[in-house]
């Protein structure tokens, strides 16, 4: 049946961050190795050229040359060691994670249907991954670690990534922009590519704090150094910031009161989170939320909220999930599907639905027939208690 066939495209929609995060990590490792190589080898090259040149100009003192070559040897040995460290502590493990994750995704591509026991295990793991992602985003790190350990999925989740976010967000909560600014500088080009202005917002906030503390001279110097470079795109804000120095922190004058407002820090934390997620190809909402939105909307029917038609197996009928489903749209159907309330199965094929003549309650014909057989031809409506002869039931088409 085609409904049971795996929708690989639908599944893969959720897996982009899963695959990309280790890839981006590896690129960071590569950039780091490149920096080290350029630094050390650049110096070695300069030194080598220097002693070669001096050798031509004056009679060389061997001692100086030996010292220079020693220096070069040390640098090259350092570089070797640094690269080896980088490889063993970050490079190889990241490649390993990439391989494990790519293969994990590959395995679901070879499965055929949702009834496959393999798929059940894969789906279990996926829900675990989503729960880790949700827990980390909501500050429940112990839970996240516990799930990862207990289910053996440490390499399939990105706990470290979120501890970075946590560290920087905590610093911002303590009203310190320093960590966030370091992160911005580490990711300068990526942020510029998406035209993200987080760095300016952070600098502006530091400026505001200087103004708040009355350190006007420092504020002006700070503005010259850190705000002015953004003048092409942010001139109005820079002008407004300059004017801020005329107003004390408890001003009631509208635009300046807003600049002094402490809730700006919360907005900064949000902006930082979103910038981080954006760069890591993480969605702004937890994957669990997205899956639940779609799942609940697919199931949600007015019948779920009607106490008369509650079904204990329906997730949306459950009061807790039903509360969450209030936020999602109803499902849309153009075809009828009749589910017998006695058996819980779909009425189709030769099994005709039959209605009680007075109450209009409909059930599967086969069930009512069984009931009649066991009860000398009388059937009783489970809902209303109405009893009548089997022959009095009306057939639906």
């Amino acid at each position, binding site marked *: 049946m085609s*409904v049971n066939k*795996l929708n690989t*495209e*639908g*599944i*893969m929609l959720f897996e982009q*961050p899963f*695959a990309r995060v280790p*890839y981006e990590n590896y690129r960071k490792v590569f950039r780091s190795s*490149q920096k080290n190589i350029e630094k050390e080898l650049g110096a*070695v090259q300069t030194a*080598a050229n220097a002693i070669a040149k001096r050798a031509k100009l004056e009679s*060389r003192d*061997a001692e100086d040359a*030996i010292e220079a070559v*020693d220096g070069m040897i040390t640098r*090259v040995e350092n570089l070797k060691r640094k690269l080896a460290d980088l490889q063993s502590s970050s490079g190889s493990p990241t490649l390993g994670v990439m391989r494990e994750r*790519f*293969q994990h995704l590959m395995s679901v591509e070879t499965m055929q249907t*949702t009834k496959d026991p393999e798929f059940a295990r894969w*789906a279990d793991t*996926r829900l675990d991954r989503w*729960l880790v992602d949700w827990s980390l985003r909501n500050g*429940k790190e*112990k*839970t996240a670690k*516990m799930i990862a350990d*207990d289910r053996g999925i440490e390499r399939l989740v990105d706990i470290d990534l979120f501890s970075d976010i946590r560290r920087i967000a905590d610093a911002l909560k303590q009203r310190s922009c320093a960590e966030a600014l370091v992160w911005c500088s580490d990711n300068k080009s990526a942020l510029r590519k998406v035209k993200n202005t987080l760095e300016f917002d952070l600098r502006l906030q530091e400026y505001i704090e200087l103004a708040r503390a009355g350190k006007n001279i420092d504020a002006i110097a700070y503005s010259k150094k850190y705000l002015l470079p953004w003048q092409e795109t942010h001139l109005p804000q820079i002008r407004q910031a300059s004017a801020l120095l005329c107003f004390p922190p408890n001003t009631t004058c509208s635009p300046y009161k807003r600049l002094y407002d402490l809730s700006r820090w919360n907005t900064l934390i949000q902006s930082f989170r979103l910038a981080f997620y954006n760069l890591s190809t993480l969605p702004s909402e937890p994957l669990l*939320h*997205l*899956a639940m939105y*779609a*799942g*609940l*909307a*697919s199931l949600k*029917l*007015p*019948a779920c909220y*009607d106490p008369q038609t509650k079904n*204990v197996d329906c*997730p949306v009928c459950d009061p*807790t*999930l039903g509360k*969450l489903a*209030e*936020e999602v*749209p*109803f*499902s*849309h159907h153009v*075809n*009828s599907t*009749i*589910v017998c*309330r006695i058996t819980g*199965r779909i009425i189709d094929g030769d099994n005709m639905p039959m209605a009680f003549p007075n109450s209009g*309650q*409909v059930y599967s014909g086969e069930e009512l027939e069984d009931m009649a057989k066991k009860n000398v031809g009388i059937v009783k409506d489970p809902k209303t208690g109405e009893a009548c002869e089997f022959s009095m039931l009306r057939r*639906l088409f």
Partner: protein
Amino acid sequence: MEGPLKELGRLEKLVSDSSWKGKTPSINDSLDSLLHSLREVKDRLQVGTATDETLTILSKTVETRKKEIDDRQKEVYNALAKMGKALDKKFHTPLPTYSPLFFSPEANAALERTIALHFLRTGQFNTAETFIEESSVDIDDDTRRQFKKLHEIVTALREQDIGPALQWAERNREFLHNRSSPLEFLLHRSRYLRFLTSNDARGQYAAIAYAQDHFPPFYGQHESEIRQLMGCLLYMPIWRLIASPYANLASPSLHLDLEPMFAKEYCASLGMSRQVPLRVVGDIGGGGALARIEKGRKVMRERKSEWSHSEELPIEIPLPPENRYHSIFACPVSKEQSTDQNPPMMMGCGHVITKDSLQKLSKPGGRVKCPYCPVESQLSSALRVHF
């Protein structure tokens, strides 16, 4: 995932330390070679056999090795870029952005409760404890105990001990009988078969004794099965059974199936759903529903038509039978779903359409002609049906 995996393989080879014959030597090899040259020059300087030319050659050597390393880094960079492209190709649709979901305190509390119950239901008790501590959710002791007990019984079953499960089944005999569930008998069947198929020489005698002790009460309901089970005695040892007409009784799935069956009955007796709700919702959402919704949204955007978020999805999401929990009636005439205000009505001929459609089709005098058959009936005699 073949594309990305292939690129990954190439990358792994490039950065490994082994002297794989790539286009360029490995960085480690280049550095070693450079060290060798440097040490040689140092020796010569110390012994006094170095000349101006030695130093010139050294400077050139450094340049050569540096270029080698740069070239190698370029190869790695290219391999990374290729992998990026392979990933872009594979994951061409980004995840959609939604404004914050389940944000309100009530929704958040409901979600936390759902998650806590999920951990309990799936037997992850330590995680549940940790989570309950870290959040503000409160699960009453009764519920926790019920889940713990379920977990204990299922674990016992997994270890081939049907004792606890049997106890529960005996206590809840009437409940199981009302649901026509063969659980109790199947538990005995499992034990019998284990005796029979064990490597123990006395297994067959134990099996017979067990059958004599426990099968008789079930003879009324399960006569043919008991006969089959006893018939297995003729096909011992087990390899003969597998080749016999009773091969299916040798399958291990007979025993494995008891776990979910027990869980289903246990949860039903407590008024809980038979499937794990978070899994059901997650599987539907992550199994293509979100992709379809996004496609639907995209089409609406292209057509520049408005879609109010809070009403109905713009497209139908197909659901497998096990996820059909309610009847859906879509009027064959108007294609709209029936509601309380617009309920399904059965006409005299037995065909059903919604009330609105019925009224639209009515003629003066209160008569209605069915769109599917030539029968006419009275508007007033139409029966409102409840699915």
